[in-house]
């Protein structure tokens, strides 16, 4: 297996956009290409994450149009990846596999999504397409609903009163908004308080509005290449040290949804490949689609013992400067969650964190050398974990 690196990265401002999915992706991709000091014709394959193009824009077959939009040559294959919210992480992982295996030397991976124009009912419906439809979909279960069910299971299993858990969940939202407020690319650049979270409208009890990530438009892209080529392209190549991906069953087949088994398996694979342990991770971008989701994820990733992560949040261990800073970008919660692009935006953050580029922004995790991204698709149908690191 060859060593694989990230060269350039790019992303759009997240939030409301009047641009098409392909136009947004073109902006992110060109930033990554320019940042890699290469030409579009140097790219040998495009792996593009997108979920709702068919519904939101009536646009299928987005990958080849995106490829030719940015000037990839006519002989360049292009593939769409659909893994719900984990689509772009899947694209990055497969790009890693192709470069590590020696088939390609330079791959463009990323994703793009438009969600805001749909409005809440249709967007909620399209998101729900990622739950199992035949035996579960007709109940009208929503994704906030899935994580609401998880919140009660978690509270009961670990004997944490729901009111206490809700307060700690609110602290996750407060932390991520605090980080996102400093991120010029974030959708919500506004700090919030625990009281505001706990007084918000109820979405799926016990989850309130500010427990939930927003609908977002945006795109992100990264160039994945060999160690040898990356060293020629950029000053600070970032290594992909390990990857892992799991496939989870529908919610009704999860024996204990508090121990998301596809995540435990994916993380184990990624750590083993990197030859490291959870304690070696300096910074992580974790799938905080809902506040409980971040709490549970940090346990499955091995940062905290099962049942203890909400207390760790209260103690500030996941803040920048804490034991393991989680979501310094603001996370999905504050930065936004254009689902086809999210994994690539997490990669954008971690690559820049390990390159030490966020000092001025005030969100640099001091001395960060190894970072992890964690992306969840559906109700854990896809979990993709990627570990990035820098030498020295």
């Amino acid at each position: 297996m060859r060593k694989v690196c990230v060269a350039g990265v790019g992303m759009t401002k997240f939030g409301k956009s009047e641009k098409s999915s392909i136009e947004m992706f073109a902006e992110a991709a060109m930033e990554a290409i320019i940042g890699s000091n290469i030409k579009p014709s140097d790219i040998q394959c495009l792996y593009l994450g997108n979920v709702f193009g068919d519904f939101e824009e009536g646009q299928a077959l987005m990958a080849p149009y995106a490829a030719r939009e940015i000037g990839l040559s006519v002989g360049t294959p292009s593939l769409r990846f659909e893994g719900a919210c984990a689509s772009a992480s899947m694209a990055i992982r497969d790009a890693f596999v192709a470069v590590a295996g020696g088939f390609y030397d330079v791959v463009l991976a990323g994703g793009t999504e438009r969600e805001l124009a749909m409005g809440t009912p249709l967007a909620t419906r399209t998101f729900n397409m990622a739950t199992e439809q035949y035996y579960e979909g007709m109940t009208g279960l929503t994704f906030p609903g899935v994580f609401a069910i998880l919140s009660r299971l978690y509270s009961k299993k670990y004997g944490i009163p729901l009111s206490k858990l809700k307060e700690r969940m609110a602290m996750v939202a407060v932390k991520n908004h605090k980080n996102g407020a400093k991120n010029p690319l974030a959708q919500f650049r506004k700090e919030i308080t625990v009281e505001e979270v706990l007084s918000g409208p109820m979405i799926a009890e016990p989850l309130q509005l500010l427990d939930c990530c927003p609908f977002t438009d945006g795109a992100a892209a990264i160039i994945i290449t060999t160690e040898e080529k990356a060293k020629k392209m950029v000053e600070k190549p970032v290594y992909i040290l390990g990857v892992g991906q799991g496939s989870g069953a529908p919610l009704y087949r999860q024996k204990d949804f508090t121990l998301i088994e596809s995540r435990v398996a994916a993380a184990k694979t990624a750590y083993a490949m990197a030859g490291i342990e959870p304690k070696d991770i300096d910074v992580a971008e974790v799938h905080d689609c809902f506040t409980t989701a971040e709490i549970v994820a940090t346990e499955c990733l091995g940062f905290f013992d099962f049942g203890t992560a909400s207390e760790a949040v209260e103690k500030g261990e996941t803040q920048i400067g804490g034991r393991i800073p989680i979501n310094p970008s603001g996370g999905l919660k504050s930065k936004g969650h254009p689902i086809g692009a999210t994994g690539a935006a997490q990669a954008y953050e971690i690559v820049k964190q390990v390159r030490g580029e966020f000092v001025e922004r005030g969100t640099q995790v001091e001395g960060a050398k190894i970072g992890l991204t964690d992306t969840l698709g559906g109700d854990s149908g896809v979990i993709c974990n990627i570990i990035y690191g820098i030498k020295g």
Partner: protein
Amino acid sequence: MVTYKLPHKEFNEALKSGKLMGFKCNSCGAYTCPPKINCNECASMDMEVVEFKGRAEIKSYTIIRVSPEGFESEVPYIVALAQLEEGPNLVGNLVGVDPDKVTDEIIGIKVKIGWKPAPPEVKYCGPIGKDGKIKPEMVAITFSLM
């Protein structure tokens, strides 16, 4: 050739006639429901179609206040996770309980399995017919108090 023993259409026809059907595995003894091609525990295809008792215990729930498109007229409604006496979990609507009055005391309560038709405005859930609507066999699993 391999034949799917209890496809969704047959499972739902049985559900609508008051029977919860699934599998019992001849290799490991485990039960599988909703159906799948092989045992949920050991992946053996040596399974028998059996009628389940149709009773479960509520493990968790949520009250949906912001619904997907097509479910607006149902709001608020309860979606619950329940464990069947035979072992597997199901996701269904808890019916016959006022969503505005439900409390955590419902966790652990015994319920029986039933069904309800799809709200008429629901689209994109299972196969869509020529009229642009979902097939009538698409129904929601329900839980009601015993």
